[in-house]
Each structure stands twice: as structure tokens, then as C-alpha cells.
């Protein structure tokens, strides 16, 4: 279907004279930078027909390759690309109408309406695109795939590699999502104010899921995974940039961005050369990305206080990550404050995973016996989760209950799925004997 043609494989010869090669490279750079914006506006023109929009946006790039080297690059390349794409979309819709002898007046009207490529209008279009890709009527995995495909500009193959799915499965997922948007008429709109919080939560969940897929999992092509985290951070920045109108939502978007930046700042320090896990307390803090931490830290107080109705879950998690980032050494960590933040987080997002993390923070603050009692209360919900047993094992070890610790590590080992984590638990178990 030509959905995945990158700018560089349009069949143009690349061994022309030096200037032409440079001109093509310059156009490709413009296209890479502007594609998502042009696409966002063009989808509005095609009334939510993603396929048609992608096709004519690709055509507009081909037209640029033909004409810019001769006529010179226009003053406003994005406006040029958008207007070429719009005209091609109108032509295509007219052809379809004629072909099927159906007068789909509504489509024509939308296509004929003027295309405002000004900054404010384009921002609205990008927001429309986020909310449409993350519409609750689409399955979560379809939301993720479509977001990466249209907003991120990743190819279907890249998305498939990152999620360990076959390219065919991923392509079908994206095709199905686009057909549902078109055929069930999922509106290409920013939701109304009453729905905005819930719909933004969904968009943030997609972005955070993309981030975690890139950050947490250790299977798959590591380069692509790192790319996923970067992409999620870029989308997080976009959301911060686009959401200033609603204070609570803007604050939570800042929280999400700060959280991702802070986690990602530890990427190089969290595993050794063999890919083995290094715990936060053992990480070499000089290897944390100082620039990224410096970008994230000022966002945290904004996220915590900006909403006007108390901090949201991302802001609270960002605050916890910030306290870790600010401790010069592991022993300097402000555990009382982290434990308090976890208590608040548990109130806002009552999940057993949050409760487990809170128990660990209390163990660091008030001692392993306090933490162990809190963890044991979670046994019923978490007995199938390896980190529950791993956390218990660690506290039992610190309490000197070596036999109990060993059996807890063994329980964790039977449940763990990921190879580096398995090796880590095995090393811990082995070290109990010595």
C-alpha cells in the first residue's frame, strides 16, 4: 500500500551531481521535520481518512523533490507541502465520488474548506491527531501502533521489531485501526472539556507504555528499544507544548515528561557490560545523564503544584524519581519524603504494585521489619509477581532470616521471565550461602 515508503526510497536517483544530492538531502530533512505536522492537517482535510492523507502527503514530498531543486525552496515549506497535499486530496476525493457515483457532499465540503497552516491551527491539528490515535474505541495496542506510526513517523517494520510482533500482524493492526476511524467515524476532534481529563489520561498512558516498552523490557533489538524511549519523550514534550489551556492536564503532562526524563537519565548506569541489572543503590551516579536531570528537575514543582487540585500520579512519580536523582549518594536518599509521596500516590492510584513500592520505601525509612509487615499484607494480590518475592527476600536477608530469604528468592526465581533479572536473583540467592 506504500504506507511505509520513507522519504529516501521514492525511486529518485541518488547519484546525480553533488548539488542535486545535497538538495535532495535538504528536502528530506525538511520532510522529516514537517511530516507529522503536514499529516495532522491533511487528515483533517480528508475527514479522518488516514490512508488517503498519508498517500497525498507522500505525493507532496515527491512534488517537492521535482520542483524545489528547479524553483528553489519556498519561504514556508510546510505551508507549501500542506497545500499541495490538500489539492491532491481534493482531486482524489473528486475522482472517488465520480467513480462510485456517490455524492458524498460532506467529504467535499471538508476538503474544500480552507487549510490554515498557521501555527495555532497546526497545533490544534496535532492535538486532534493525538486524541484520535488514542481514542478509547481503539484497542490499546492499536492506539500505540497508530501513535508511533503517525505522530512518531516510525515505519511499520520498526514498530513490529520493537514490540516483537511480525510486520504482517503490525500492519494489519494499523490498517484495522485506520478503517475503524474512517468507517465508524471516530471524530478528528479535540474532545470537549468534560471528556478531556479522561481522554488525556488515555493519551498519556499510551506515551508511558511506549516509554516503558523501550525502557523496561530487555528483549528485542536494543537500538530500536532505545529509540522507543526517545520517541515517547518526544511525544511527552509535544503534549506539554500543546496542553497549556487546561492547568490540571498541563501539570500532569509536565509530570509525565519529567518522569520519563528522570528514568531515562539512568539508562547507561542501570546495567553492566553483560546486560546484568545494577540496582539503583549500586549505580554509579556519575553515569546518570546530568543534562537530562537538569531539564527534568524544574518541571517537578510545576507538575506538583500546577494543577490546582493536587498532584496527579505522574507528577508524584516524577517527584519520587527527582528525590533519587538529587541524592549525591544512595545513603543520602530522602526516604521519609519518598515514603510519604508513595502514600499519596497509593491514594491517587490504588494498585498493589504501588503498595509494594511504598512498603519498600517504608522499609528503607523505618527498617526492614516495618516494610516486611507491609509487604506481607499484599501476599494475596501479588503472590504471582516475582518482585513481591524478591522484595520480601531482600528484607528477610537484612533481618538475618537467611533460610526464609533463600526460599523467597527461590519463589521469585520460579516466576521471573526476564533473563538478566533471573541472573540477578540467582546471584542474590548464591550470595546468601557465603
Amino acid at each position, binding site marked *: 500500500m506504500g504506507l511505509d515508503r520513507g522519504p529516501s526510497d521514492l525511486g529518485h536517483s541518488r547519484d546525480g551531481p553533488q548539488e542535486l544530492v545535497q538538495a535532495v538531502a535538504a528536502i528530506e530533512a525538511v520532510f522529516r521535520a514537517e511530516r507529522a505536522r503536514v499529516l495532522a492537517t491533511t487528515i483533517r482535510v480528508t475527514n479522518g481518512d488516514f490512508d488517503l492523507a498519508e498517500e497525498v502527503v507522500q505525493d507532496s514530498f515527491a512534488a517537492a523533490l521535482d520542483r524545489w531543486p528547479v524553483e528553489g525552496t519556498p519561504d514556508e515549506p510546510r505551508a507549501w507541502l500542506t497545500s499541495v497535499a490538500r489539492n491532491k486530496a481534493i482531486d482524489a476525493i473528486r475522482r472517488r465520488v465520480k467513480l462510485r457515483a*456517490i455524492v458524498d457532499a460532506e467529504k467535499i465540503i471538508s476538503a474544500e474548506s480552507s487549510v490554515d497552516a498557521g501555527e495555532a491551527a497546526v497545533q490544534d491539528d496535532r492535538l486532534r491527531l493525538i486524541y484520535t490515535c488514542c*481514542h478509547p*474505541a481503539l484497542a490499546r495496542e492499536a492506539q500505540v501502533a497508530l501513535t508511533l506510526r503517525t505522530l512518531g513517523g516510525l515505519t511499520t517494520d520498526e514498530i513490529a521489531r520493537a514490540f516483537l510482533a511480525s510486520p504482517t500482524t503490525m500492519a494489519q493492526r494499523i490498517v484495522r485501526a485506520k478503517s475503524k476511524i474512517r*468507517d*465508524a*467515524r*471516530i*471524530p478528528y*476532534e479535540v*474532545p470537549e472539556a468534560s*471528556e478531556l481529563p479522561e481522554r488525556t489520561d488515555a493519551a498519556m498512558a499510551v506515551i508511558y507504555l511506549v516509554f516503558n516498552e523501550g525502557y523496561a523490557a530487555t528483549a528485542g533489538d536494543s537500538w530500536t528499544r532505545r529509540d522507543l524511549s526517545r520517541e515517547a519523550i518526544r511525544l511527552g514534550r509535544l503534549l506539554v507544548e500543546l496542553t497549556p489551556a487546561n492547568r490540571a492536564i498541563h501539570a500532569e503532562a509536565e509530570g509525565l515528561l519529567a518522569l520519563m526524563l528522570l528514568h531515562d537519565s539512568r539508562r547507561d548506569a542501570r546495567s553492566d557490560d553483560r546486560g546484568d541489572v545494577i540496582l539503583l543503590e549500586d549505580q554509579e551516579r556519575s553515569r546518570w545523564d546530568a543534562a537530562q536531570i537538569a531539564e527534568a528537575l524544574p518541571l517537578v514543582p510545576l507538575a506538583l503544584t500546577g494543577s490546582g487540585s493536587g498532584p496527579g500520579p505522574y507528577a508524584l512519580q516524577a517527584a519520587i524519581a527527582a528525590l533519587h536523582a538529587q541524592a549525591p549518594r544512595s545513603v543520602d536518599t530522602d526516604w521519609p519524603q519518598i515514603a510519604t509521596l508513595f502514600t499519596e500516590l497509593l491514594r491517587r492510584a490504588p494498585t498493589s504494585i504501588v503498595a509494594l513500592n511504598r512498603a519498600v520505601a517504608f522499609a528503607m525509612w523505618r527498617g526492614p521489619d516495618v516494610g516486611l509487615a507491609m509487604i506481607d499484607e499484599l501476599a494475596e494480590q501479588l503472590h504471582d509477581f516475582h518482585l513481591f518475592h524478591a522484595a520480601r527476600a531482600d528484607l528477610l536477608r537484612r533481618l538475618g532470616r537467611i533460610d526464609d530469604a533463600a526460599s523467597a528468592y527461590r519463589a521469585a526465581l520460579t516466576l521471573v521471565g526476564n533473563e538478566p533479572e533471573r541472573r540477578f536473583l540467582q546471584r542474590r540467592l548464591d550470595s546468601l550461602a557465603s
Partner: protein
Amino acid sequence: MQYLLMIYDDEKVLGSKTPEDRAKVSAEYLKYTQEIKASGHFLGGDALQGSHTATTVRVRDGKQTTTDGPFAETREVLGGYYLVEAANLDEAIKLAARIPSSRWGSIEVRPIWAIPEMGPKS
């Protein structure tokens, strides 16, 4: 755009309700129907007789078979429907969420595929 809002209910749940509760549900349905008529969304709608009255028809290789019962044996069965006019899926979802059975059953929202050769609907 037209959407069919299909109402899936557990017949046992409705059957176990007291007569007063059933009357309350009927009143709610009546009110909802009047509301979406007044707002111009309503195009049609009916309640269906119980699934024990259902017959499923199939023709395979020219041979017709009829079987007793609904197409799928599930707990929740199609109990009624509304045909509504809505601007887009979001509006249709909002209409679906106001159907009383959405609180104990499920509403499936499906856009109508307008086939011009079939002519106008009414």
C-alpha cells in the same frame, strides 16, 4: 451518520427483578426513548422477545438449516436495539451510555453501512 445501538442483557438478571423494579426500568426506557426522539437522534428501535423465541437460519451449499436458539450461546443476548442518527462515534457512544441497560448489560455500537442501491431506509 446512522448507528445501531444493540442492547445485550442477561435475561436472568432482568427476570429476577421484582415487578416494581421492572416497572422502573420500563419507565426509564420510555423516558430515554422520548428524550432521544425530542433531540432528533431517534430513527427506530424495539425491544425483542426473549432469546427462547429465537431461531437461527443458515444456508450451506443450497441447503437450509434452521436451529432453535440465538446465533451465539452467551449469557448476554440481544434484547433490543435503537437506530439513531449521530454526528460521529463519540456522540453515538454518549447516546449508548444513557441506555438503562448499559448499567447492567452491554451496548454494542455499530455504524450503519449505507448502501445506496438499497434505497432510503424509510
